[in-house]
């Protein structure tokens, strides 16, 4: 009898844990489902034909097609406006129609300037990646024009850091060069769990969570001082060759480029650009490159007492561009596109 009781208890625990896992799988699929496919060019992209759900920040459902494009159907071959960017353009936290790329396409169609706008945004990309992958983009999409979304880190730290799957700038004999990304397909255990990770949100999210906990554990433990705050030593400033990076980028796309700049939003100082933003704007003005700055729309946010960043389920004015931010970006880009069309440049 004791043995039977032990078996019954073990069976109870197994059944209960299975049911608990199934419950969490159903819950997680509503807000964390993004099946990936191995891609020879980019390492990983979302599976063609997949529907990605994201509720960790904002609440979005996105459709993905071949080549890591965010679109319901593959491009039809019409020379498009290609949009490159990082997670701010990828915008998993919004539905398809809310992202500035789709809004721009809809706005251009409404004003009889119909042309496809392809969203090729991918998280962790930077200027170095756009330069490196430029031949692929031109060969695959034959864009009539390219919009490149930038933020401060895209031309500074993110473009120079060494991480798997991303390109980076480097200096070789004093010349600016791009180092290719490491897109080696996974092998061994990583390869074995790759498919199950794509099928089950529970497994994929569990691995992500463990990585986050490991990262959090490495952070310096907080110290408390009576009457004063603990201060960390400031890291030394690094001088990045932003102007050279941008010149390389413009050349990679044959000069047919518009930069969309997304600066941080600080209601205390709407007019004050960041140092990086100032350098980018100055370089564009000097070289005559097309430049759109979301800062020009900041007074509208101030008047409406809202911010272009942050979501109801995260924090105000932090994180990614929200619906209002995407709408403002689309309007600003529409004006620039129409200006370029009127000049017969686009």
């Amino acid at each position, binding site marked *: 009898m004791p043995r039977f009781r032990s078996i019954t208890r073990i069976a109870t625990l197994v059944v*209960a*844990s299975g049911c*608990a896992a199934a419950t969490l799988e159903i819950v997680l699929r509503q807000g964390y489902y993004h099946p990936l496919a191995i891609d020879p060019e980019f390492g990983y992209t979302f599976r063609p034909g997949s529907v990605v759900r994201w509720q960790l920040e904002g609440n979005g459902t996105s459709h993905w097609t071949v080549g890591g494009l965010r679109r319901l159907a593959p491009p039809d071959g019409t020379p498009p406006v290609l949009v490159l960017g990082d997670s701010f353009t990828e915008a998993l936290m919004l539905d398809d129609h809310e992202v500035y790329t789709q809004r721009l396409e809809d706005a251009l169609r409404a004003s009889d300037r119909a042309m496809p706008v392809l969203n090729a945004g991918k998280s962790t990309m930077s200027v170095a990646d756009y330069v490196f992958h430029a031949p692929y983009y031109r060969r695959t999409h034959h864009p009539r024009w390219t919009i490149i979304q930038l933020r401060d880190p895209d031309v500074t730290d993110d473009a120079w850091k060494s991480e798997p799957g991303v390109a980076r700038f480097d200096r070789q004999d004093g010349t600016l060069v791009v180092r290719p990304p490491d897109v080696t397909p996974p092998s061994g255990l990583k390869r074995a769990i790759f498919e199950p990770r794509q099928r089950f949100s529970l497994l994929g999210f569990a691995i992500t969570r463990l990585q986050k906990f490991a990262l959090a554990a490495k952070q310096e433990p907080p110290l*408390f*001082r*009576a*009457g004063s705050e603990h201060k960390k030593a400031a890291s030394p400033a690094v001088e990045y060759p932003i102007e050279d990076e941008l010149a390389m980028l413009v050349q990679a796309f044959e000069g047919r480029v518009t930069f969309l700049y997304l600066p941080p939003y600080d209601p205390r100082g709407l007019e004050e650009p960041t140092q990086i933003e100032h350098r980018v704007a100055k370089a564009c003005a000097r070289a005559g490159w097309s430049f759109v700055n979301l800062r020009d729309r900041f007074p509208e946010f101030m008047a409406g007492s809202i911010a272009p960043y942050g979501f*109801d*389920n995260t924090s105000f004015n932090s994180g990614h561009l929200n619906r209002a931010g995407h709408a403002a970006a689309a309007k600003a880009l529409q004006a620039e596109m129409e200006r370029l069309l009127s000049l017969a440049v686009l």
Partner: protein
Amino acid sequence: MLLSLLALPIRNQRKLHLLALGSCFFYAAWDYRYLGLLLAVSVIDYYCAARIAEAENQRTKKLLVLVSVLSNLGILAYFKYVNFFIENLNRLGVQLPHLDVLLPAGISFYTFKTMSYTIDVYRGHIKPVRSLLDYTTFVTFFPELIAGPIVRASVFLPQMKRSIGLTRDRLALGGSIFLLGLTKKVLLADRLASVADPVFAEPALSSTSAVWFGVIAYTLQIYCDFSGYSDMAIGTAKLIGYDLPQNFNLPYMSANITEFWRRWHITLSTWLRDYLYIPLGGNRYGRLRTYVNLMLTMLLGGLWHGASWNFVLWGFLHGMALAFHRFLRERTGNRGLLPTVLAVPCTFVFVMVCWVPFRATSFQITATILRAMFVPTTGVRWMPTNLFQPLAIIVVGHLCGWLFTRASAQSDGIRERVIASLKQIGASLQTNEISGWHVRLSLFPTAGAYIVFTWILLIFFFACTNTSPFIYFQF
């Protein structure tokens, strides 16, 4: 690992040694240099108490208790308040340099714990501990060392005769309580912090509605954070075999401020009552003196929380409220001015407004937030779901707790129905005279195991991963 060692079949005395060693290692992991301070405080009070018990004349006893109290307060004053004093003296024109002093973790809690031991021995409430090791085990007991509950020797020392170590019952009850505390901290408090922190960082940018959301969020955050830590401490202690005192009892269901202080941070408020308010005279010397004693107790209680005038202001507000409530009670004969259905939200709003100076880092921020709360202000508009979801959970939790405590007081059949419902999932209500009532979950039947596993997975998947220290660690 410590729990595994305590499960070994060795003598209880050896287990106590292991527990003391483990607790010291736990404290030293933060900063080994301050372990010496903790042990020094233990040794001073141990010897003072031993000598008090041996002393024959009252004068010697008083001198020894004074040594204990002054040494504890002196250590606390230096590490916690020296730069506060220097800053204020500098504002008056005296030019003194800031000292590079680190606030030792838990110092506010363990000094109060050891002082209460010496005072209780002096008062004859307890006999002194024979073994320095036993006393050190009590002082360094790791579950409540850093942020309470403030455990008195009279509560803890008698329990040291118990056989400690992990058993199935202790795992079930202690694990349930720990799980609840962890939920409050990582699922609720940290989420609420994302709403409160931006408002308190930049109040001038926030609209009236955003400020109210931020203040409500902080009101809930501090409750979940602190009661969550207390639950984790109580749960961990139960795993070992000890009962720690209840520290929170549905404080936001209080119908007046006096009741609030019987339900919020219970171990601190009873400590202040027994070792400050009553020695000052309590209510024995007339009405005016009673109000003064209440004010002094709350002012010092506020200052205990931190070296800042904001905390003194917070204490002042609560002291005024306590004095006023006492004044009203004397006039109305314990009948409240308002019915309970109005008194509870009024008390909640008052306590919530008082949290503003407690959380704000300066008077300027306090003034800005209070102004924005009561004078319509344009600014950032925000509808944070990170507030509404935890709010719903906390309201439901409070209602369930209130229903049970009301039912157990009135015995109208609701309690029996609650117990029967819990039994369906293998859970039970456990009441303990020290740590209050808790729900004990079980892995059997299947429904119970399903609830436990789902709960653990929910914590794992949805806990905030931004490092956010417990609020009361800074005290």
